[in-house]
């Protein structure tokens, strides 16, 4: 691994750790005694310190070490976890992130720290320090620290031997190896242990071997010689050998490597060998018994190892950092057993290729049809099926759960609400909803903005809320779910709601609308998506700089999504974002109108009806149709795109494609229905940026180009026509 990629891995790890630290801190705010979260905070600092050390980032090590030490004291109950302390820890987390960014950006570990940053760090550490001093009266705190740095080493070889079940049957007598070992030197300490499984009385089999040995050995030998002693039993036992005066990290590693229920006696052996002191072991055991109350014996045993490691009792003297990385590497290896990290670009490339494949296979189908080779049809069908499977699977690869990205908003809500003196609870539902990673990334900014808006403009201060008979604590709710090939994200608050009168006044004052214009409630609300309209009179540093909702709308629409807003004064506001699940390939429904062909996203097609022929379909007026007693607005595509084929003008049969999006339904009148196809979405160039009603284009198997219709925008256009503003948006 080159240094650069190692650094990348380091950054990724730090980001993950800081995220988990943040989550833990948020949890601690609710329940300061939550041991799991305390551990998480400790672990994050601890691991960042360790890996940071490997790269020689001293500033990081220094800073995180202090926080780690404090967390250690918090865990052992020496320092109470107060609200201000949590606050400081949040700041420490942020500072760590800045430190890492700054140092990694500086590229050389020795580069002097930005004095401002160093100053900020010093301030934070100073805030931590008094907390530590308060807890200092118990003299226990100090010796802990001293002993930690004391290099306790052993001049003994340390061996652990674990024989396999079949050893006896293979003709191996463990004792003979020990006797032979004894002839090479002195067996100073021997610990014999049965695998705990042997203690299940009923299943114990005398001819299976459950023996394990831990040996402290003194002798003038080298490692190969020792290993040679057990060569004969190579297949039958697991052997570990630690050299005398091994850095203590190795003992620690050994402890970490033994099965959890074995840690107890190995720890004991380490103690006897002198790799750790009695005091340290005892302390670990005490911590264990105080923490482990009410747990199963297994869980308690497991703790000994963890505690020894965490307390740093068997503290590596020299290569501490290196070993920490090895630990981290091991954890990563375990993760990698389930996951492979793949460069997002490679995935993107794969999906591009599959897009080409989809187009090619459509071309083959067309050619086969044209050539009239009946035998080929089956093969083409098979290929088609496989291609669509490959497509789905490849797209699945980029799908991520949205929850991970939503959880970051907890921090946003927390910080912002503190700053504003509001009490706000963020509830996230539907976090397991999956969507394309590229979409997730692009929607985070708009989402952040909306949430900040909800907190800043929406939720009132506790006093005002109480005065209005609402609970003092406001709620911001994020909900995500799938709906016909789209993902819907709702951001709702139970705050003040939008004041349509003020929006209107503001819109009039900036000349967006004329004073005599009549607008519905919805239309007035939509005004806030217009550029330069902010209703908050006082711009805060959070939101309200006037570049708000219009940017949100632009961002969402750039993703082929829509954003809707509903608000009742005094009750709250709900913003609903609808986004396509993926940006690359969709199942489409091909229709013809005039000389051109169009693709409607299949997931949005509800049904197809023949226009005029069916008795249930009645033209109601120019823009409405009565379909089985349901009034549907409709658009004739040839009218919209002004491409009616004069030859077709009279007497041809039109079809009505009923499409739905969210809870809306509308009809599209087309000339021909051409069937389903897999559609690779090609974005239209800048020239067509302002073209509404079209989401992109695709290349058909025949080589022709079809436009992909944006159903939601079409609906908006239809609405525009109805309300008589009558602009020809599509041709704008």
């Amino acid at each position, binding site marked *: 691994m080159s240094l650069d990629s190692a650094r990348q891995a380091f950054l990724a790890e730090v980001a993950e750790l800081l995220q988990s630290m943040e989550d833990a801190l948020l949890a601690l705010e609710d329940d300061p005694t939550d041991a799991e979260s305390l551990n998480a905070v400790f672990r994050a600092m601890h691991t960042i310190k360790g890996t940071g050390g490997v790269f020689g980032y001293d500033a990081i090590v220094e800073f995180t070490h202090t926080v780690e030490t404090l967390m250690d004291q918090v865990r052992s109950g020496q320092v109470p976890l107060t609200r201000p302390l949590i606050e400081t820890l949040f700041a420490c987390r942020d500072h760590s992130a800045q430190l890492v960014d700054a140092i990694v950006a500086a590229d050389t570990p020795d580069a002097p720290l930005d004095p401002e940053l160093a100053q900020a760090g010093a301030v934070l550490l100073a805030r931590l320090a008094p907390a530590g001093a308060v807890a200092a009266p118990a003299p226990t705190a100090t010796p802990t620290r001293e002993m930690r740095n004391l290099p306790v080493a052993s001049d003994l070889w340390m061996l652990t031997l674990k024989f396999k079940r079949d*050893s*006896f049957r293979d003709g*191996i*007598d*463990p*004792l*003979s190896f*020990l*006797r032979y070992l*004894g002839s090479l030197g002195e*067996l100073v*300490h*021997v*610990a*014999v242990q*049965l695998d705990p499984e*042997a*203690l299940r*009385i009923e299943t*114990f089999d*005398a*001819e299976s*071997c*459950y*023996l394990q*040995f831990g040996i402290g050995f003194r002798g003038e030998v080298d490692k190969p010689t020792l290993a040679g002693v057990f060569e004969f039993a190579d297949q039958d036992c697991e052997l570990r050998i630690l050299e005398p005066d091994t850095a203590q990290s190795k003992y620690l590693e050994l402890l970490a490597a033994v099965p959890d229920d074995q840690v107890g006696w190995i720890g004991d052996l380490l103690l006897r060998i002198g790799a750790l002191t009695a005091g340290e072991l005892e302390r670990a055991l005490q911590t264990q018994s105080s923490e482990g109350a009410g747990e199963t014996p297994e869980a308690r045993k497991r703790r000994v190892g963890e505690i020894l490691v965490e307390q740093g009792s068997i503290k590596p003297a020299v290569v501490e950092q290196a070993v920490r990385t090895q630990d981290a590497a091991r954890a990563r290896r375990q993760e990698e057993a389930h996951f492979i990290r793949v460069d997002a670009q490679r995935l993107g490339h794969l999906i591009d290729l599959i897009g080409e494949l989809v187009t090619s296979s459509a071309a083959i189908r067309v050619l086969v049809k044209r050539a009239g080779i009946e035998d080929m049809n089956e093969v083409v069908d098979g290929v088609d099926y496989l291609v669509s499977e490959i497509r789905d699977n490849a797209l699945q690869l980029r799908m991520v759960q949205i929850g991970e990205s939503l959880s970051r908003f907890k921090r946003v809500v927390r910080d912002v609400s503190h700053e504003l003196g509001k009490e706000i609870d963020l509830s996230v539902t539907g976090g397991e909803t999956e969507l394309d990673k590229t979409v997730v990334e692009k929607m985070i900014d708009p989402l952040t903005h909306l949430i900040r808006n909800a907190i800043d403009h929406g939720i009132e201060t506790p006093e005002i809320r109480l005065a209005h008979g609402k609970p003092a604590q406001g709620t911001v709710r994020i909900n995500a779910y799938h709906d016909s090939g789209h993902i819907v994200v709702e951001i709702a608050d139970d705050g003040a709601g939008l004041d349509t009168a003020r929006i209107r006044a503001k819109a009039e004052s900036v000349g967006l609308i004329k004073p005599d214009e009549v607008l519905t409630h919805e239309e007035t609300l939509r005004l806030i998506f217009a550029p330069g309209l902010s209703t908050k009179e006082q711009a805060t540093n959070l939101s309200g700089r006037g570049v708000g909702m219009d940017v949100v709308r632009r961002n969402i629409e750039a993703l082929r999504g829509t954003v809707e807003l509903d608000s009742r004064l005094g009750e709250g506001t709900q913003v609903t974002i609808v986004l396509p699940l993926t940006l690359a390939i969709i199942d489409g429904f091909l229709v013809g109108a005039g000389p051109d062909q169009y693709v409607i996203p299949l997931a949005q097609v509800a049904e197809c009806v023949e226009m005029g022929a069916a008795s249930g379909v009645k033209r109601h007026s120019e823009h409405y149709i009565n379909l089985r007693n349901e009034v549907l607005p409709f658009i004739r595509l040839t009218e919209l795109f002004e491409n009616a084929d004069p030859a077709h003008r009279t007497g041809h049969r039109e079809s009505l494609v009923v499409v739905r999006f969210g809870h809306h339904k509308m009809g599209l009148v087309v000339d021909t229905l051409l069937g389903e196809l897999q559609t690779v979405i090609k974005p239209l160039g800048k020239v067509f940026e302002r073209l509404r009603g079209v989401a992109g284009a695709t290349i058909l198997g025949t080589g022709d180009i079809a436009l992909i219709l944006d159903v939601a925008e079409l609906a908006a256009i239809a609405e525009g026509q109805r309300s008589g503003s009558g602009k020809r948006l599509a041709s704008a």
Partner: protein
Amino acid sequence: MNTSRATASDPERLMLTGELTIYTVGETLAQLRAQLAEQPIRALDLSEVTELDGAGLQVLLWLCDTAQARGQPLRVVAHSTAVAEVLNLLQLNERLALTASPSGGTTS
């Protein structure tokens, strides 16, 4: 290999005789289980054990550990030189609560 209750006066004391090795452990274990079913064992007399290997030792440890787990600790009250050699090698004297010298004599 044979196991027997030593005396009527001390029914919780068990005597093992003969070879305690991989060749006999199966049989020994069966006998021990039978003995345990009858009555707990609190003392072990190993003075007549002529040979002890890893498998034999494992049975002894198993006996001690399970007894311990049941809250009825077990002591080795006497042992032969063959046993002593193994116990010394593995520093097990303390663990088996051994007080006797490797003489074949008893300390009852």
